């Protein structure tokens, strides 16, 4: 249970800065589709019997690189994401079903299996947290400037493409470490809902990340507790708590305005 809580907190923390950028840059669909594509990575990892973190990370990265390269030519980004990401999900599911001899609980990957988080998983999750925090802290100002206006970034001597790459890489890492905790289908929820809830009361970008992190961590703890008490699946329970935060804060904002 302690391990599960620590894993949940780790995922909530990495999701905070990334979730804010996903909301600011309108990458919600991008995040969701890349997460779904990670199923192919999980399937390949299982077939080759290697760590699912590596497989998922690799597929998420390849997916975002391909989509970024191809978008704007003949199709819009969301169309390309729809094609590649969802086919990757489908192919992944088919591969998993063909793997004979492996007893698989598909639900564990689609919805997470936080109670099965091992000591090794925990090391990887918190390593990911440290890496992402370091990356984002290092590039914070350039990332914000690039988000506001690309030409402004160029005029300041920055390279928006490089900043985009850093964001994409961080997103792929977040997805890879979140699979065990909330599952492929709900990673996007952990990215978007706490950030959207935090938007109600944040005055600066920094404050929004901090509030997002607090909401995420509280949701992880409360969601796990609830899952234990009511015997419900952990990942969806955590997401349900984030939704409660979103609704409560949106109402509070409406009342504050009056």
């Amino acid at each position, binding site marked *: 249970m302690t391990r599960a809580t620590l894993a949940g907190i780790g995922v909530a923390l990495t999701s905070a800065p990334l979730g804010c950028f996903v*909301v*600011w840059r*309108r990458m919600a669909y991008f995040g969701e589709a890349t997460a779904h594509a990670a199923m192919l990575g999980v399937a390949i990892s299982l077939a080759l019997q290697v760590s699912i973190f590596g497989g998922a990370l690799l597929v998420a990265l390849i997916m975002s690189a391909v989509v970024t390269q191809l978008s704007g030519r003949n199709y819009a980004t969301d169309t390309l994401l729809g094609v590649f990401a969802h086919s990757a999900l489908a192919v992944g599911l088919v591969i998993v079903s063909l793997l004979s001899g492996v007893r698989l609980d598909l639900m564990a990957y689609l919805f997470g299996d936080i109670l099965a988080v091992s000591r090794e998983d925990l090391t990887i999750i918190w390593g990911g947290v440290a890496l992402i925090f370091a990356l984002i802290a290092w590039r914070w*100002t350039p990332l*914000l*400037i690039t*988000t*506001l*206006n*690309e*030409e*402004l970034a*160029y*005029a*300041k*001597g920055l390279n928006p493409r490089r900043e985009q790459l850093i964001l994409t890489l961080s997103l792929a890492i977040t997805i890879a470490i979140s699979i065990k905790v909330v599952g492929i289908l709900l990673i996007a929820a952990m990215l978007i809902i706490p950030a959207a809830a935090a*938007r109600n009361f*944040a*005055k*600066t*970008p*920094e*404050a*929004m990340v901090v509030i997002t992190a607090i909401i995420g961590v509280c949701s992880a703890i409360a969601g796990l507790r609830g899952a234990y008490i009511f015997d419900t699946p952990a990942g969806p329970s955590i997401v349900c708590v984030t939704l409660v935060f979103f609704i409560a804060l949106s109402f509070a904002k409406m009342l504050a305005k009056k």
Partner: protein
Amino acid sequence: MSLITVENLSVKYGTNFVLKKINLEINSGEIVTIVGPNGSGKTSLLKAIIGAVQPAEGNIDLKSKLKIGYIPQRLNFDKTLPITVERFMRLTEKVDKNTYMSALKTAGVPETSKSQMSSLSGGQFQRVLLARALLGSPEILILDEATQGLDQPGSAAFYRQIEQVRQNTACAVLMISHDLHVVMSASDRVICLNGHVCCEGTPSAVVSAPEYQELFGAGTEGALALYRHDHDHVHEHVNPSE
């Protein structure tokens, strides 16, 4: 002294040339305006100068360590990204409160410092962008259609502000504008662009140039034609040139 020298510049997207063999020079302290119809490569020219697009041919020489104050057309965010004017001012330059407050005063919007960027009016918003651009004590301000979304009096007031800033700081100004009446009053030099430099010179010389009249129509009708250019509805009127 020349701040920006563009030599033989060509820019293409895919196989389409949007700019062909452009030569121009911007000197310190002058206000230069680029006019041209939609798709004439105005924005591409600015992008090439700040390094956001790579030239297919030619050279762009910037004075070494040229300090550019760039004022974008708009920012890519609405209400999803909370940011106060104060925080925005400290985003690109590490400055203390006195410095950014005095820049906000110069731009005419000191009262906005605690407001959210998303709550500003169009005119205030552009002035905050101007204030931010002034922070690095730029030698040149570059404006990409900075008055889009402002009404006529609003944009006229904004350009008067720019002129005043130039008088106080002696920085050069390079801007794109649709507003011909503003071009006439505020610019030292006008460059008329349509994939290539059609003509350039003082505002009055450009307006009477045949190349310009061919693009925008003649006489006062030209200014009107340019202005109508952006309307999404058509007025019933008889155009003698049709």
